[in-house]
Every structure is written in structure tokens, then in C-alpha cells.
């Protein structure tokens, strides 16, 4: 199957547009002008991404090489179905999160908002860069930029807790990428002479089983943003960040960049053939399953809402890895689709956590008894978000989980079906008490007065939007589903 390619600078522009807004953000005299820059950049970015969508759905790819840095390796961009799916998720959620950021940061009167919005823009640029990378070097470049750009966001509060969390964050993220992923990339280059993502990988015929396994593990743990245990503990620590950061970066951009990178490397570099031949995919599935179950169990015991969500994220990320590593058509579709579906669900949950904090200053679940009476809209959105993450119809999450379940059956590894079902049960177990306590706790336990007082409008609107999108995606999953199946077609050559 030959893939038609189109030469266009659009992917570069899509990456750069938010960077170009930074001088505007920094130099703005008033808050409103500054935010206008952010929205303008976000809007243009989404338009650019969407304008490329028809070409990709047509089965073509868009290529652009910026500069050649090594023999046969350059800073190059390539838009294909997988990258498009991720870019679409990230750029559309950026707008929503920007809305939310404005509400959240202003209502809490946070300091250094200019710095916040500037680094936010860098982070989103890097995310799109990762999505549109044509080779591992470019991906690594944007991956590192993202790690560094999110550091000031994670440590926004500049206090002792932020400092130690920041350290942990860098230790895992930078240590993993420099210590494991970078050497793995160089060894790959040494043996294969290329770093381009090919539909069936580039390692076949160049490596033996031991080396392939070693490299796979180095990539899997080196891209620590994916939070595979034991490289996960930066994520709960990073929850010290302001909630919009947690929402976009730790439910969507950063962690999904990790998952996306691992998926890219597994399919585009190592290749499904090599994974299957040396039975590496079984090992990856096992590692992912352990993470799924253990993270869900830990989530049960967390009282701080954001930490519970963080452990939930760790588990959900491994769904993506598990799905792709199953190497069956449905499994892969489900895994890739989960990038999108989980994003919409989880961001809603984070928005809710932030809205609760904004309106009441409460962080702990045990203190949220009866909060449904105070903030009915937020808590309803919370219910929708959790249903989506658990995988309940009528929410988007159901679609990806359904494919994942089918995938386990197709691949004949039923043990992983058990893992998925167990995990869904655990998901329900750690989400429902929150919701239940919010609405249905007995009257004497209620900690709130009986009057409706939601968070500021800027906070509530975004979470309503993402919650509605989560439901909408159940009925209209086409853009993402089509992209995912297109990506799977390319990878599996069907």
C-alpha cells in the first residue's frame, strides 16, 4: 500500500503558532489583551489542525522537513492519522483549558499569571510537535521541550512542596529520557541507520531478540511520562500544580505525549513484527496490566481528589499501552482511541476538582459530603466524566473500552480481559463514592448549606463543554474512530 504524501508547511505552523504568541503574551499591558493572544493562538492552531484533517482522512500524509541534522535524520514533520488524532485532541482541549485557566487563575488571584500563560503556550507547541514528528529525533526534541516547559507550571506555587515535587518530576522525566530513551534512540540509530517512523518499524532484521527486548524496555520506561510503574510517582507529586495545569498537562498533554511516544516507538520504530516475533508484546502487556491493577488499587485509598484522579490516570494510560501491545486490530484501535476518549473524560474530572477548589477551597473527598447540593452542575459533570473513564455508555469511554475488550478476545489472551474487567470494577469503586457522597449522603452528614453556589462562570462553562463532548463522542465517535482505524490500517497493513 503506497501512501500519498503532500508537502506542506502547515504542520510547522501549527507547532509554531503558540510560540509566536509568546512575545504578545509577555508584552501585553493588560490581562485581557494577554488572554486575547492566548485565544487567538489557540483558535488559529485548531483551525490549522482541522484544515489538515480532510487530507489525512483521505489516506494521505503531510510531510515537511525543516533542517537536516544528521545523515538521513532531520527535524522533520509528518502528519498521519495517529498524529492527527492526538493533535486534534490536544488543540481542541487547549481552547477549553485556556477558558478554564482564565477563570481559575483570576478567581484565585494567582501570582505570575503571565509566566503561566507563556509556558502553557510553549507546552502546547511541544505537544503538537510530538504529534507531528516524522522521526524519533524530532519527537525526542519536543518531548524534552515539553518536560522543561512544564517544570515552571508544575512548580507554579514556588513553595517547599512545589520544589520537592518539581525535583521528583524532573528526576523521573528527565532522568528517564536522558538516561534510557536517549541511549536507546542512539543504539537504534547505530543499528538501523534511520530514525524515521515507518509503518512496520525499522528494527526488523537489524536486531536480535535480546537487543529488541532491551530497547523496548528502555523506551517504555524511558518515556516516563506514560507513567508505567515504577516510573509513575512523579504524576501524583505533580498534582501540586494549579488545576488547569493538572487538567491539560497531566490528563491530556504530558501523559498522553508519553503514551503517544511509546505507541509511536512500538509501531514505527520497533515494529509490530519484531514485537510479535520475539514475544515482547506479551511482556509489555503484562507490565501494563500490573500498572492498571495496582494504580487502581492505590487510587481507592487516596482521599485527596486530585491524587485519586492522578492514580486513575496512571491506570488509564496503561490501557493505551496494553491495547496497542495486544497487536490485534480492535485492541490497537481501542488503545489509540483511548488517547482521545480518556482525554475528554479525565479533563472534565480535573476541571470539576478545580471548580470545587475554586468555590470552596476543599481538596479532600471526605470533606465533600453533600457538595452536590451546593454545586449540582459541577457534580453532574463529574458523574459524566467518571462514567466515561469507567467505560459506561452513553459516554465516549465506552467506545474505546469496547474495542479494547474485543481486542483481548481477538488476540486470544483472555487474562487481559480479566484485567480490563477488574479494572473497570475498581474504577467504579473509586469514582462512585465521590458522586454518591456528593448527592445522596444522609442529611446529618451534609457539610454544606442548601444553596446553589457554583464556581465562576469561566470555570463552569468549560467543564460543561467537555462533559457534553464526552457524551457526544459516544454518538459521534467518527472523527476519532476513523482516524484510529486509519492508523491501525497503516500499522497492520490491512
Amino acid at each position: 500500500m503506497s501512501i500519498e504524501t503532500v508537502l506542506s508547511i502547515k504542520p510547522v505552523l501549527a507547532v509554531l503558532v503558540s510560540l509566536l504568541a509568546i512575545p504578545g503574551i509577555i508584552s501585553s499591558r493588560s490581562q485581557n489583551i494577554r488572554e486575547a493572544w492566548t485565544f487567538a493562538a489557540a483558535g488559529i492552531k485548531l483551525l490549522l489542525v482541522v484544515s489538515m484533517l480532510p487530507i489525512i482522512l483521505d489516506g494521505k500524509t503531510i510531510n515537511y522537513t525543516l533542517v537536516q541534522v544528521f545523515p538521513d535524520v532531520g527535524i522533520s514533520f509528518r502528519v498521519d492519522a495517529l498524529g492527527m488524532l492526538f493533535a486534534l485532541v490536544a488543540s481542541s482541549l487547549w481552547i477549553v483549558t485556556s477558558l478554564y485557566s482564565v477563570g481559575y487563575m483570576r478567581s484565585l488571584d494567582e501570582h505570575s499569571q503571565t509566566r503561566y500563560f507563556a509556558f502553557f503556550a510553549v507546552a502546547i507547541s511541544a505537544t503538537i510537535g510530538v504529534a507531528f514528528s516524522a522521526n524519533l529525533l524530532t519527537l525526542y526534541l519536543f518531548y524534552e521541550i515539553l518536560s522543561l516547559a512544564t517544570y515552571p507550571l508544575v512548580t507554579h506555587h514556588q513553595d517547599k512542596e512545589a520544589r520537592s515535587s518539581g525535583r521528583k518530576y524532573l528526576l523521573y522525566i528527565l532522568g528517564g529520557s536522558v538516561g534510557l530513551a536517549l541511549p536507546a534512540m542512539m543504539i537504534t540509530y547505530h543499528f538501523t541507520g534511520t530514525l524515521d517512523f515507518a509503518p512496520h518499524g525499522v528494527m526488523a532484521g537489524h536486531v536480535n531478540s535480546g537487543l529488541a527486548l532491551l530497547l523496548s524496555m528502555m523506551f517504555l520506561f524511558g518515556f516516563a511520562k506514560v507513567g508505567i510503574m515504577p516510573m509513575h510517582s512523579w504524576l501524583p507529586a505533580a498534582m501540586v500544580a494549579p488545576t488547569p495545569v493538572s487538567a491539560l498537562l497531566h490528563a491530556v498533554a504530558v501523559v498522553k505525549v508519553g503514551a503517544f511516544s511509546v505507541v509511536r516507538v512500538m509501531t514505527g520504530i520497533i515494529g509490530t513484527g519484531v514485537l510479535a516475533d520475539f514475544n515482547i508484546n506479551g511482556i509489555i502487556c503484562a507490565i501494563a496490566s500490573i500498572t492498571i491493577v495496582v494504580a487502581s488499587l492505590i487510587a481507592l485509598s487516596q482521599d485527596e481528589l486530585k491524587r485519586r484522579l492522578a492514580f486513575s490516570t496512571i491506570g488509564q494510560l496503561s490501557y493505551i499501552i496494553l491495547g496497542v501491545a495486544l497487536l490485534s486490530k480492535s485492541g490497537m484501535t481501542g488503545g489509540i482511541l483511548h488517547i482521545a476518549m480518556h482525554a475528554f473524560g479525565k479533563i472534565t474530572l480535573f476541571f470539576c476538582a478545580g471548580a470545587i477548589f475554586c468555590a470552596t477551597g476543599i481538596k479532600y473527598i471526605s470533606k465533600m459530603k453533600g457538595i452536590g447540593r451546593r454545586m449540582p452542575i459541577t457534580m453532574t459533570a463529574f458523574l459524566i466524566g467518571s462514567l466515561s473513564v469507567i467505560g459506561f455508555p452513553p459516554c465516549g469511554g465506552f467506545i474505546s473500552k469496547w474495542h479494547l475488550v474485543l481486542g483481548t478476545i481477538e488476540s486470544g489472551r483472555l487474562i487481559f480481559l480479566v484485567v480490563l474487567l477488574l479494572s473497570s470494577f475498581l474504577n467504579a469503586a473509586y469514582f462512585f463514592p465521590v458522586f454518591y457522597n456528593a448527592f445522596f449522603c444522609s442529611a446529618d452528614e451534609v457539610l454544606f448549606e442548601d444553596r446553589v453556589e457554583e464556581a465562576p462562570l469561566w470555570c463552569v462553562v468549560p467543564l460543561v463543554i467537555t462533559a457534553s463532548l464526552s457524551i457526544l463522542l459516544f454518538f459521534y465517535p467518527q472523527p476519532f474512530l476513523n482516524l484510529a482505524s486509519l492508523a491501525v490500517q497503516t500499522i497492520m497493513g490491512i
Partner: protein
Amino acid sequence: MTFFDGDSSLISNLPAIVVTLPLFASLIAGFLGWKNRKAPYPIAAVALFLTFISSVVLMIQVMSTGVAIEYRMAGWAAPVGIVYVIDHLSALVILLITSIAFVNFIANKSNIDTVFRNKAGAFNSLYLLFTAGLLGMTATGDAFNLYVLMEIASLSGYALIGLGSNRAPLSTLNYLFLGTIGATFYLLGVGYIYIATGSLNMADIASIMPKILDSSMILFAFIICMVGLLIKMAIFPLHGWLPNAYSESANVAAGLIAPLTTKVTIYIMIRICLTLFTPQYTFDYLNTSDLMVWLAIGTIIFGSLSALAQKDYKRMLTYIIIAEVGYMVGGFFLGNRIGVSGAILHIVNDAAMTLALFMAAGIFMWKTGEESQESLKGMFAKMPFTMAGFTVAALSVVGVPPTCGFFSKWYLISGGIAAGQYFFVAALIFSSLVNAILFFRIFEIAHFEPFKDHHHHSSNHSNKGEEASAHDTHEQTIKEAPLGMLIPFMAVSILLVVLGLYSGQIVNNIINFAIPSSIL
């Protein structure tokens, strides 16, 4: 390109002009400085600028014709006369020297005016003389001439460093002792080469080399030259002189000497090994790779660990310089094309990075009057642009793409993998991680801890009252360095990224031609 083919005397004399221009300007600046304090600076600035332009023209000339320019001093042909050879390698290093000397000079105008107010003539003269010495070392094709120019550069370097803090003279004296031992060893080695070959011209000696590969005289000459150069480039365990000398010198001097001295010495080592002793002798016959790479590994590990122990910002930088020497020496002695490319590329990149870091040191010093890392509290809020530039430079040292440090490190690591020197690869990665710790420690201080007004010396270039009100962590007013310092610094930090993105072009169009085709 008829412009270059023509017999224009100015253009054809460029190889000599690029060295003699700063040399004569140095004399003029020195003499005028006696009468008029203000005169030397503009003269030196113009001379450095013209030298820089000449080196650009030379680079273009070499790249467009693709052949080395051989300039005969006073018209005497080699091997009798002294020749200056501008090939891809020397043109690159000459361009590096002139641009760093120029940028550092321009950026530090206010520093020079205040610190060397009464020594304007001496300082400007020495600055130019040092530059001329380095340029001559790079350009010359004569082994003995190299010694003389090396000593010109060294002596003016000692004097420049000696002008620093109160402790500087003692450190400089120790530097002078070791530097003299190094240079004299080199001279001794040249003597043995002369006995064995009867020639001092590098190319001439190289043509004789294949016949005398097994001469013990040549072996001795090789060893003693290398030991001399290794002392001069401060490789572990011969590094003792460097940290004190560099950290106690004035910032302007350090900004010139620190990026260039070790790097040019490494260039000399490469030049001697490739052009004089020939790669055949260095790599195949002697098989020096293992020993030298282990020496490099030792240097990298030692430099990195020592840097961790430093509390003072400039001292930390000096140990990073030592570790980086290990990068380049190790990369070169990998003996394969990728490794040697990486070493040469890293000469350029590391010089640029070191320049940026020392310029930052100058700005911090100007701001706080201190050199401890603790003095950088609250800097991100206070000087966001300076800190942005500093961050880029630091990330380049760590080796984060797209800064240039990443790309040369890539070549070095690839070379290490190709040569099977896995310990070298591990040392490079270890050093990257240590560098990350070093700089993030500073970032943490600058990011998390509130700015403190700490002007110990009563400097007249900052306003105390204005800053005293800015104690609150979150409501700090931005107070940047003056534009004269800030703009060159920002330009250099942007250059670090540009160099990185164009490293492929640099390697393809320049470095590839600089490495003999016998190295695969």
C-alpha cells in the same frame, strides 16, 4: 567567485592580516593608552571587528574553493619559510576565535570601563595580543612557530588573569609554571621531530612520516608533545591550575580565556595528530585510542563530580570546562569519523556555550556583586531575559535538543558506540545527568527563593532604594542588565540554538572536509 580568484592583494594577504591586525592594534592600543584612557577601547573594538570580518571572508573563501589557502610569510616557500595554512579546520577555529573575542569584548564594555579604568591601555593591548596569539596558533603550519605563538597567547593570558582578584596573581603563577612546563615539553618534542625529519613544516614532516613510523625518536616526540598539550588543556590529572586561575580572573578576561584556551589547545592536538603525525601513525600504528579515551573518561567523571562539590558559580563552570575537555579528547581519540566530527563540532559548540555561561556570570556579578550560587535567589523574576538566555546555555551544556550541546554530544556518543567504547558513552551520559543536577540546583535557587538585595560593594550602577522595595516574592519588579550587556548575551544564546539546528550543515560542509579521508 571571481572576487576571490582575483589577485587582489588585500584578499590574498588575509591569512597574514587576520593575525597581524590584532597584533599591531595591540601595540597601538598599548601606546595610546598611556596618553588617553579612552582611546584603546575603540581601537581594539574596530580591530577585533575587522579581524572578525576577515575570518568570515576566509571561511567563505575556503568553503567556496574547497582547497586550503597556503600563505607564505615574506614569500619564502615551505619547507624553508614559515607558511600559514587556512583549511576548513583552521578557518572554522579562526572564525570561532574572532567571533568570541569580538562578542565578549563588545558585551563587556561597561565592565572594562569600570574594572580596568586605570589599566585601559594594558588591558586592551593584552586582550588583542591574546587573540592574535590564538589566531596565529591556529593558522600556522610550522611546528616551531606554533610554539612561539602559543607562548604569546599564554603570556598575555597569564597577564590577563593576573589582573583579576587579589588572589589571582598566586593562581596565575601556578598556571604559569604548569603552562611553561607544557609549552617546554612541546618544544622538546619539536626538537626530536626536527632531529628525525630535519623539518619543521607540518606538511613536510607528514610526508616523511610513513618512512619513519618505527623511529623511537618520533615515538618520544609524540609522547612528549602530547603530554605538553594535555597539561595545557587541563586534562585530569594535570588540571590543577585551571579552576583557580579561571575563577579568580576578571569576568571579561574569563569570558575570553575560558571558552578559547582549552578549545584551541585541543584544536592544536588534533592538528598535530592529523596534519603532523598523520592519522596513520596516531591511530593505526600507535593505537593510542584506548589509553586516551580512558584518560578522557577519567577527566569527564572527575570534572563532573568536582563540579557538584562547588558552591561558587564560576568555580563550578571551571570544572565543567574540565569535563568538556574530556568530551573532546575522548571523541577525537575514538579515531572514527563520527567521533572526530563530534570532537570538532564540540570545540565550536562548547566554546559558544562557555562564552554564554561566562557572560551570564558577568551579568550576575554585575547584579549581585557575588559569585556564590546562593546569590542568584529570585533571579527568574528579577531578570527574566537574562535567565532565559542562561537557561538555554545551561540546557545546551546538559545536552537538551534543539540546543547545540545535544548535537555534538550525539556525534560523540554515536562515535563511542561505533568504536565500541561503551564506557565513554556511559561517561557522557553520566556527565549529562550531573550537569542537569548542577544547573537545576541553580534554577531552583533562582526560581524558588526570593530575591535579596545584596550589594556588598558600593557599586554606582544600581539604585539601592529602588530595589529595596522589591522584597516581596511575588511582586518583584523586573530590573534587567543594561542593553549593552543583554543584547550580545541574548544573541549568543539564540546562536546556541541556531548552531544546533544547523549542525548537520556545519558537519557536511566544513568538518567533513577537515577530516582526512583515511579516517573512516
